[in-house]
């Protein structure tokens, strides 16, 4: 009984701030500012309409989705063979390399801010989604390698050896036999790459000005520039929860594993 109550209280407090944002997104700015109300008096979708009709708002979402998609595909694609190598073989400097990848996942983004600005300007990628996608590989590639390595180490090595004895070449074995065996891991990894790229603001904001401005930056800049349109801000925030909310059910058993870099 006490357990239930404690759990219920925790969940209620978790959802209170989330509820409040959704609640605000359904009210007009006048109503928000004029009075305090637990339940919207006259729920309206006007704030969402603003977002879906104003290019500077929905463009932000499109920009974010573009670089997040590029980043996820790129991170998983390069991490797959590397994770296989780490889980199956010993090679010169493997431990140092694995550790170096970890330090990149953990390092503060602020350190890379200025060099990234110069690097991506000098290669002509500044203010493009590709620059943000590449910048996010700094932490997502190590993340993907670590998570995938955790999943791949759970697949018995006898499977590889049998396949090679049966005359499978490495690429054919990898695509036909091994990938289907670790498909859960690939899905979970893609989900986490997606989430971390979607959630990151510092690089995304610094590496873009106009053309590739992500939704996160649109939100902060609108707050400071055009006064406070709380309703639209809340609606924009609510919409950012949609992608994660859609897929979470499928990865429910792997959330802890993903955040713990595949080590749980």
């Amino acid at each position, binding site marked *: 009984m006490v357990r239930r109550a*404690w*759990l219920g209280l*925790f969940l209620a407090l*978790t*959802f*209170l*701030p*989330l509820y*409040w*944002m959704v609640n*605000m997104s359904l009210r007009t700015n006048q109503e928000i*500012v004029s009075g*305090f109300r*637990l339940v919207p008096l006259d729920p309206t979708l006007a704030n969402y309409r603003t977002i879906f009709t104003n290019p500077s708002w929905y463009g932000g979402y499109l920009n974010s989705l573009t670089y997040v998609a590029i980043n996820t595909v*790129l991170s998983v*694609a*390069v991490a797959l*063979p*590397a994770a296989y*190598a780490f889980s*199956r*073989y*010993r090679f*010169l400097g493997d431990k140092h390399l*694995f*550790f*170096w*990848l*970890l330090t*990149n996942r*953990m*390092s*503060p983004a*602020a350190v*890379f*801010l*200025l*060099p*990234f600005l110069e*690097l991506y300007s000098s290669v002509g990628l500044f203010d493009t989604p590709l620059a943000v996608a590449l*910048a996010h*590989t*700094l932490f997502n590639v190590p993340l993907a390698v670590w998570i995938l390595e955790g999943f791949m180490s759970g697949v018995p090595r006898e499977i590889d050896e049998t396949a090679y004895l049966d005359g499978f070449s490495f690429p054919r074995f990898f695509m036909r036999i091994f990938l289907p065996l670790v498909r859960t891991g690939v899905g979970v990894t893609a989900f986490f790459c997606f989430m971390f790229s979607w959630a*990151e*603001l*510092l690089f995304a904001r610094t590496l873009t000005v106009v053309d590739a401005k992500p939704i*996160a930056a649109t*939100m*902060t800049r609108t707050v400071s520039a055009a006064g406070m349109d709380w309703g639209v801000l809340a609606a924009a*925030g609510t919409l950012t929860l949609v992608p*994660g909310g859609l897929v*979470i*059910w499928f990865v*429910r058993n792997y*959330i*802890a594993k993903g*955040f*713990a870099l595949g*080590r*749980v």
Partner: protein
Amino acid sequence: MSPHAKPRNERAWFLVLPVCVLVAFNALIPLMTVVNYSVQDIVSPDQRVFVGWEWFKSVLRDPELHAAFGRQVLFSVVVLAIELPLGLSVALCLPRGPGGSTWQASLCTVLIAMPLLVPWNVVGTIWQVFARTDIGLGGAVLTKLGVDYNYALDPVHAWGTVVVMDVWHWTPLVVLLCYAGLRAIPETYYGAAAVDGASRWAVFRYIELPRLSGVLTIGVLLRFMDSFVIYTEPFVLTGGGPGSSTTFLSQHLSTLAVGQFDLGRASAFSLIYFLPILIVCYVFYTLMTREERS
């Protein structure tokens, strides 16, 4: 299977090559740039002077940095001290074993994980609209209760709000880690404890807690690392203020780097910032690889 049994194969380098190229482009070039800047005084693009350790000395003597460092350590310690016991206590309440049906467990997991999926800047926005006294539920309730609460003006209130925000955001991670650890404990352990007539506390102290040491270690390290480099959430919520009361290391650094373009000082600071992170990473790495070997 222990890593000792892995065959040696230098050709595996071809498989890790794409990762190396990509991460080297993203990590090595910028890092060298930082090292380069940290020992020079760049007056103009054509005029640069080698200054040796001067920037490092000046950064280490900077009282603002000392203050930011102090706040950072205090913040990390406070959130760890709250999130770990809280997360553990919630995880112990979750249904598990044959008694708790699986869909209930899944539903709880998904609901608890919700804050983890919120983009970090939106975490700031959520707490901004929640904690404001004029339009926010939390702020309004505190005001009704007679607390003269205003996180934008009072440093203590700002601190409290940032800590509560972080607890809200990241305690779910500790819950999920502990829950994963608890579910891995074999049912027979509890059976044996029941035969011995062990109290609930004894079960926790002598069965559950030792079995959770692995996930708790991961939890401590991850939460320390992430709170030590926190930037986005306080930036959106308080902007580091009032004054500089909630300016943590990352924000201090980004102000130096892209706010004031103080290249030398920012670069020297960056390299110093790396030190504690490398140490914690090393501890994490050692513990992880040791656990997998045993």
